[in-house]
């Protein structure tokens, strides 16, 4: 085993989890919140969002796919030929995902 533990498998695991959550849940929520609700086809019940279970669900739904984005976007920048900045790009991408996770938790918690 390497003496310095590489973090790659950890981010990949989050990427996989986030991508699966996104694949299963994002399309329907996108349709409901982004198209149906604004156009008045459906009205979301606000009291739903007070529930702890709903908040946990929303936390997973929003924060996990951020890691899917971070990992994918990091490697897309590599694939677009961005060289010599591999470390900063990785830190930036995962950093944004972590910040997003904290903000999501805070918004859901204080609400």
């Amino acid at each position, binding site marked *: 085993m390497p003496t310095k533990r590489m973090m790659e498998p950890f981010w990949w695991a989050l990427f996989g989890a986030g991508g699966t959550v996104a694949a299963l849940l994002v399309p329907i929520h996108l349709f409901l919140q982004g198209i149906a609700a604004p156009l008045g086809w459906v009205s979301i019940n606000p009291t739903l969002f007070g529930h702890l279970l709903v908040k946990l669900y929303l936390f997973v739904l929003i924060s996990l796919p951020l890691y899917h984005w971070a990992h994918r976007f990091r490697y897309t920048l590599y694939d677009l030929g961005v060289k010599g900045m591999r470390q900063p790009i990785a830190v930036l991408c995962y950093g944004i995902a972590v910040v997003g996770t904290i*903000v999501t938790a805070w918004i859901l918690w204080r609400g």
Partner: protein
Amino acid sequence: MTAARPDRPKMFQPKMPANWWLKHPKYFLFMLRELSSVFIAIFLVVFLIQIAQLLRGPAAYKAFVQTLRAPGWIIFHIVAFLFALYHSITWFEAASKILVIRRGEHRVPPQDVVAVGFTAWGVVSFVILVLVLLLRS
């Protein structure tokens, strides 16, 4: 790696063009798949703001939903929706290559894994749709 040796003639090292992903339809589709993660992330941020406004109160929420009625936002969400569909489809296809389930010599056909993924996707989406409609205000 390709240094010319005295006993070897000069080799020609081709350079990878910066727009390599525009050179082949398959490469372009790959880039679209990767790009889908950006649209999904942006939607989730908008969704989070929507929730934040909803938790502030009905007036704030109503105002935000009004903003989302703007044609620009509707178009964004339609485009993001198409990208999200593309992500889901390619995700389950990819999963079928990774999830190798074997019983003795027999391997579960990849198409079956894709079918399970698509079914789960359909069921989950339907359940959420029903819940939202049943529990609407």
